[in-house]
């Protein structure tokens, strides 16, 4: 829920939650669960991980709601929690070498879940985009998603990931170059 009205409404719900009214937090979850899920999925490219991360993000938010700084938006706050959870998860994947290998045709999680009525072209694009993003290193993927999908500024990304703005730029450039190579069939020929 964007805009000043949404922020005020969020603050009211937050205060009621702080006062012990769980229904208020339930309403907050209902407002933002899809957005948080989308962030988690964009970074992990896995529905199972996105489920776990979005739940964990709301649980942590609920437990820390008394320390919420009202200068920030609730969504921004929970999104930061979710992104940190995602990054930790991606680091763990890298440590365990569980980063998915190139998927065989038809062996794609999102393809399994995709609505059969969905446009075939979009499904194919989503599938290939998943594969391409999974081949990116986690740090480049995170920067790319936060910029392109979440439309965060370089400064916001820098602050969230605790890296210099120059590093944000260089990671973005590398991610774009790599993706252009992986998705060249969808891009106009040079």
């Amino acid at each position, binding site marked *: 829920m964007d805009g000043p009205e949404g922020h005020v409404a969020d603050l009211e719900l937050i205060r009621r939650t702080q006062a012990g009214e*769980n229904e208020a937090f*339930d309403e907050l*979850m*209902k407002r933002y*669960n*899809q957005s948080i*899920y*989308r962030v988690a*999925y*964009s970074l992990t490219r896995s*529905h199972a*991980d*996105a*489920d*776990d*991360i*979005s*739940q*964990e993000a*709301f*649980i942590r938010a*609920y*437990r820390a709601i008394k320390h919420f700084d009202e200068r920030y938006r609730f969504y921004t706050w929970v999104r930061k929690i979710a992104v940190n*959870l995602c990054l930790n*998860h991606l680091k*763990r994947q890298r*440590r*365990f*070498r*569980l980063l998915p290998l190139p998927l065989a045709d038809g062996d794609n999680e*999102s393809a399994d*879940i*995709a*609505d059969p009525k*969905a446009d075939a072209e*979009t499904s194919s*694009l*989503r599938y290939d*985009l998943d594969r391409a993003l999974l081949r990116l290193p986690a740090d480049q993927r995170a920067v790319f998603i936060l*910029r*392109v*999908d979440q439309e965060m*500024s*370089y400064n916001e990304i820098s602050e969230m990931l605790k890296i210099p703005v120059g590093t944000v*730029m260089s990671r*973005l*450039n590398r991610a*774009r170059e790599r*993706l*252009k190579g992986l*998705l060249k069939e*969808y*891009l*106009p020929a*040079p």
Partner: protein
Amino acid sequence: MSEDCRRTRLLLGAYHDHELNPDVARQVKEHLATCAECRRELESLEHLHSLVRKAGPPEMAEDYWDWQRTRVWRRLREGGRERQPFYRPSFFWPKLATVAGGLVVVLVVATVGWQMLGHGRYGERRALPAERAAPAPGPGYAAKPEIPRSKTLAEAPEQEEPKVEAGGQLREAPKAGVVAAAGARPGARADRVGDRAMEQKPMPFTDQARRGAQPARPEAAQRRVSIASRQPRAAGRAIPAAVPREEEPELVSAPPLPKLNLRDSATVVLRLTTDSSGRVTGAVISKSSGVMRLDSIALEAARRSRFKPVRKDHRPVASSFQYPYRFKPRKHAQE
């Protein structure tokens, strides 16, 4: 690709994202107006972003919200320890096991190595086989009695005999002292011995004993006894003491030994280890007497004995050495 193109390519992403400062953005814009290749690059960038947007949000089940809120509230109600959100096959465990195994091996090797250097009981036992494997006293072993020391000791075999049980390893000086004292005061010796069949050789050194020993003791007696110097004493019944490899400390005190009725003499050779304070930290049988009872007595006595620590570079250090216990029958002592 010109230098301008190369520089523009580096800035193209930030230009597309409107993250460049106005001056730099204007320069990039001016270059794009003149370079078709860089314009195509920018278009490809825009196309890439549009692809991501076109893919849209992830597909979600219709009942996702109900399912999620149920799980969230259930976990919040359960409280307690936060559950790990991810469960993955633990590829970490084999690595951990490898590292732990490596650490154990390093620890064992380090411990054994440390003790092999004579710092602990285990090291003594490890050293024992090597000691046994050491060359046995050769023919020259018993052939050395000509040296002055042996002569001195050989002069008083009778006095020595009564005090049958010998701590053969005694330093030369104490031995000579005891021998001399026994010779000078046989009555006193007999009183002390009483009916005991056996008597502990390593006795406290009295001043009198020391004085009595002085004439027969060369100055070198203050130094560590060599096997050759000890050998004469074994003349006729060789003491199977191996050549000590380490410096042998001086006996300071030893416990009394039990009364025994022996028919034959016997010798037990122990390998003792002392710490820097002279306390016996390890005693193992280097050569058995063949009688378990005598071996046990010798071991027990050795473990309760106290030695003057060996000094190395003016500092007391741990030591490991051979130490024989000789047992003689009482009748032999009366001869």
